[in-house]
């Protein structure tokens, strides 16, 4: 009995414990949205006009100084690209320190220091603040702008520009900006080789002397420093900074066009199309629609659970990712929806994009989407606040955009108060699906016609300028005639046909590394081999013979598929034009195009199974000047020299997505009709 009662009591106890247990069948509910306690920014202004804010945060013994120049955007015109050099030129040495000394002194205290055309940033541990301020002030007051540094930066910039001309994303970005803002707007103008070469040290110096003025500057101090101390150090380092008159600029507001149009850049070697659907948008931080526009974008295309991603990737599988953005800027912003899609589905993808945009504007969002988007945005907003850079940014924005003092402190509450009706109204106000630029960068021959359903199609070049449409003077010209002309230009059919095989070695330089290329052509027997080597070591090789193909790289050898062999075959002849007929290739003439300033016939060569390559033959000389190939990229031919009575190019420029910079290859040796053995094709 006693025993029983104990167990009874025990079970009672257990029961009570059971009662105290939480309900595990439900996820705990969210607590009330937290208020963000951003340290109140304290401000003061120096006599020279420098506005300072101090966001004290003693969590860590560190302090950062962010200097921002608030000037109107500048139209650089003939010097486009100049402002991109200012920051690195400033940190390239002062009257007191060489660049090396500056770097060493920064590293020694574990600090960082950087500059741009409109800002400077320095940070260090609290105890090194005097040193880092001394270095910052030295850079601010005494930069020497060495010519050598500008030469280096210009060279880097030109290399970058060359790369960007073949980069579909860069082409798309340049085109979209040029259309949305206009080329005579600071946000739409384009830096070219010419404008970069126009930049001089004097330009950089004059920019610095004009715009680095305290009366247009904000200094945000974030970290272990209070206002009293900030006043002392700011006075010490920045009070002697002389104010000056800074020019102001206004620009016409970019307008939306009357109806949707399609802008196309033909990049024949593309296997994907970069789509960007865009229009200008007036929106700045603090506008009535600003926060709701964040939510709206989150629902449309802000992330991996947004409508565009779910439709174009998860449902249709057109792309790796589809997104949208709604910008915010004092001058003018942009709405954009974008993705890179397979060439074949370009029109379907644009259709889905337009459909999603129209549906969003017409039918609005759901309550469920709203709740998800809010919590997603609130989460990333909250996490971003941990970085002092974000807090500095908020303090600056509050003044720059004249926001209420508690704008960011109550940001989440304001966002959480938004209703479905608010978001829907914002969508209607901001987005006009009937006035879009639909920009596409891809294989024009494949996509141009299909794009006509979305608006008038206008072609542009890779710098965002309208493509030169060249009239064909000789209307009777055909693809076959172009090839005939080419063969007679190189020396005639008889001499050309006498070349049945060739061995070619070439050398090239990729960013300091010597690259060797060797090719063996046995046109008569349809054998081909190619090797790429670095410092004598073969890095990659491919062989086509006996109807088979292999590719070897990194110690692995892979058999080519039938399709790959077909595609490879197109570029496996030394003089391919002699074999177009016997290979039953079909030829199509696609007009006259501008190839780096030379007018050339574009001929599309297609194998019976559908593999294709594109050659360009100069209208004037008849010579082949360019080949486009989906696998190998673009090859430009030049320096034609006579060998065995036949003109053969001795210089190749190869541009491929696989290599970071255009490859300049020179022919080192050329043997015509050599004796070939099986060893040449191993």
């Amino acid at each position: 009995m006693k025993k029983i009662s104990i167990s009874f009591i025990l079970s009672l106890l257990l029961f009570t414990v059971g009662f105290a247990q939480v309900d595990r069948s439900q996820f705990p509910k969210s607590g009330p949205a937290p208020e963000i306690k951003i340290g109140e920014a304290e401000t003061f202004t120096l006599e020279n006009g420098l506005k300072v804010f101090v966001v004290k945060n003693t969590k860590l013994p560190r302090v950062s100084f962010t200097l921002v120049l608030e000037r109107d955007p500048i139209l650089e015109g003939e010097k486009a690209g100049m402002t991109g050099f200012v920051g690195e030129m400033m940190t390239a040495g002062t009257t007191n320190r060489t660049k090396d000394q500056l770097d060493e002194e920064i590293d020694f205290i574990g600090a960082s220091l950087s500059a741009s055309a409109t800002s400077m940033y320095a940070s260090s541990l609290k105890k090194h603040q005097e040193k880092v301020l001394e270095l910052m002030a030295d850079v601010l007051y005494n930069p020497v702008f060495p010519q050598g540094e500008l030469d280096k930066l210009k060279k880097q910039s030109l290399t970058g520009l060359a790369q960007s001309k073949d980069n579909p994303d860069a082409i798309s970005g340049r085109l979209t900006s040029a259309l949305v803002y206009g080329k005579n707007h600071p946000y739409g103008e384009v830096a070219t080789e010419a404008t970069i070469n126009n930049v001089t040290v004097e330009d950089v110096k004059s920019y610095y002397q004009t715009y680095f003025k305290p009366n247009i500057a904000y200094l945000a101090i974030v970290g272990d420093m209070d206002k009293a101390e900030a006043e002392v150090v700011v006075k010490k380092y920045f009070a002697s900074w002389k104010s000056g008159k800074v020019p102001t600029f206004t620009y016409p507001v970019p307008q939306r066009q009357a109806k949707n149009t399609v802008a196309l850049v033909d990049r024949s070697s593309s296997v994907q199309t970069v789509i960007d659907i865009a229009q200008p948008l007036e929106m700045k931080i603090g506008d009535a629609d600003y926060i709701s526009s964040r939510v709206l974008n989150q629902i449309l295309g802000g992330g991996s659970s947004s409508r565009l991603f779910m439709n174009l990737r998860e449902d249709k599988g057109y792309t790796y990712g589809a997104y949208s953005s709604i910008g915010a800027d004092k001058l003018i912003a942009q709405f954009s929806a974008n993705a890179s899609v397979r060439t074949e589905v370009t029109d379907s993808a644009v259709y889905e994009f337009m459909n999603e945009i129209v549906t969003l504007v017409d039918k609005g969002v759901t309550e469920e989407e709203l709740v998800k988007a809010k919590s997603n945005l609130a989460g990333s907003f909250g996490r971003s606040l941990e970085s002092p850079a974000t807090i500095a940014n908020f303090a600056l924005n509050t003044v720059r955009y004249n926001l209420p003092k508690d704008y960011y402190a109550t940001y989440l509450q304001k966002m959480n108060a938004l209703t479905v009706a608010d978001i829907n109204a914002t969508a209607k106000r901001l987005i006009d699906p009937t006035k879009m630029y639909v920009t596409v960068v891809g294989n024009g021959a494949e996509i141009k016609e299909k794009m006509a359903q979305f608006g008038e199609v206008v072609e542009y070049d890779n710098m965002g300028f309208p493509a030169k449409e060249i009239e064909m003077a000789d209307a009777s010209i055909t693809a076959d005639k172009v090839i005939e002309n080419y063969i007679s230009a190189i020396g005639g059919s008889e001499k050309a046909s006498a070349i049945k095989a060739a061995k070619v070695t070439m050398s090239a330089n990729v960013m300091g590394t010597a690259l060797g290329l060797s090719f063996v052509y046995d046109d008569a027997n349809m054998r081909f081999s190619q090797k790429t080597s670095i410092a004598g070591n073969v890095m990659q090789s491919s062989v086509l013979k006996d109807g088979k193909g292999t590719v070897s790289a990194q110690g692995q050898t892979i058999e080519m598929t039938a399709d790959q062999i077909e595609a490879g075959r197109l570029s496996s002849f030394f003089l391919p034009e002699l074999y177009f007929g016997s290979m039953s290739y079909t030829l199509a003439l696609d007009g006259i195009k501008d190839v780096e300033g030379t007018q050339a016939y574009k001929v599309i060569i297609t194998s019976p199974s559908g593999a294709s390559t594109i050659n360009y033959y100069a209208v004037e000389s008849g010579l082949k000047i360019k080949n486009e190939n989906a696998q190998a990229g673009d090859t430009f031919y030049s320096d034609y020299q006579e060998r065995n009575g036949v003109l053969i190019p001795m210089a190749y420029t190869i541009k491929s997505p696989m290599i970071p910079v255009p490859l300049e290859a020179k022919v080192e040796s050329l043997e015509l009709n050599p004796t070939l053995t099986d060893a040449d094709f191993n």
Partner: protein
Amino acid sequence: MRKFTALGLLVGMLSIPALAQNKIEFKEFTLDNGLHVILHKDNTTPIVVTSVLYHVGSKNENPERTGFAHFFEHLMFEGSENIERGQYMNIIQARGGTLNAYTSNDITYYYELLPSNELELALYMESERMLHSKVDQIGVDTQREVVKEERRQRYENQPYGTILPETLKRAYVAHPYQWAPIGSMDHLNAATIDEFQQFYKDFYVPNNATLSIAGDLDYDQTEKWVRSYFSEIPKGQKEVYRPNIIEPKKTAETRDIIYDNIQIPAVIQAYNLPKRNHPDSYALSMLSTYLTGGNSSLMTKELVDKQQKALVVAAIPLELEDGGVFIMYGITNMGVEAKDLETEIDKLIKQVQDTGISDEDFAKLQNIMENNIVSGNSTVAGIAENLAEAHVVYGNTNYINQVMDSYSKVTKADIQRVAKEYLDLTGRVVLYYLPKSAQPTE
């Protein structure tokens, strides 16, 4: 020359470092079931990180079942009795959070970073994981495929990806550190569902876990939630297995060649280290920074910039509870033989052993270490992790506030001494990674 002297003087003046580390306040308690809880309140940002450190890593594994600890890191996202399969990540993301986990030779660490009004959710999720995670055949089968892909991507398909497993295999002959956390696919394939369930019962118990929460929290409310979600989780029924194996000191160099899918040869050297909480760890960490930390470090300056024999050199002390390894690797420049690079690396090691380091370099090292330590505590996620490690590895949560003191005890002479003592050529492991094409045919 004059400049040099002036700098020397300046360094002399700085030689009593004013330590910059701010104290990190925390509160800690242990539940009856053995779960150790650490709370750090920081209301600056309305976010909170909730983490659980399970004191189980690959060293706790059965030598016939390697890879279990890492496999569990995957399995533990499969859900629980109350969380449907695949919902663990979705619910965290839908509430505005992010999450992740990792496994080392010593520990397994999980964390969720959420808005602070979702702390209760995070505690619920982690308590579900500890109380009754789903360890079933479907989950095992799914995650086995994922781990296979991870293995391919990170080790097999990655040039030099096998450096760690190949090095560990040779650096340890007795201790279970001889296998890497990724373990053996054969072992995972051979394991039965009972074995997985047993591993969960053995190691995923409150008395083997540390719950570390940092951020915008209220101490009382948090403790209340912790008690209500975690108290009911039963204590493990047996003592947690921890290997008590002393790795014998090696008396001869181990030298091998690995033929890999690479183009450029690499040299790897590994030296056995003392236990992680040994006082010499600090000097060794400074030594590695001196050798390869940053562009002005000894080996980077000499071998990459000046001699251009290496594309990159790195010294990484892999600090482990029972004594890790100091791994040094160099990837050769075009046309340089592995042997040639190794000779130069050895020369520089000998230089440090024979002549030590300069006053200026020592001062710079102190500055860099100080900066690193301060920056290591710049996020609540970092603080939660450092607090948990301080408790588990150093047996003292307040160690987080003493790291800087430990570094400041290191002298210039210590750096030379540890270089001599631990970078001992006779017991080291040397591996050459060479292209498969260089493999002699047998």
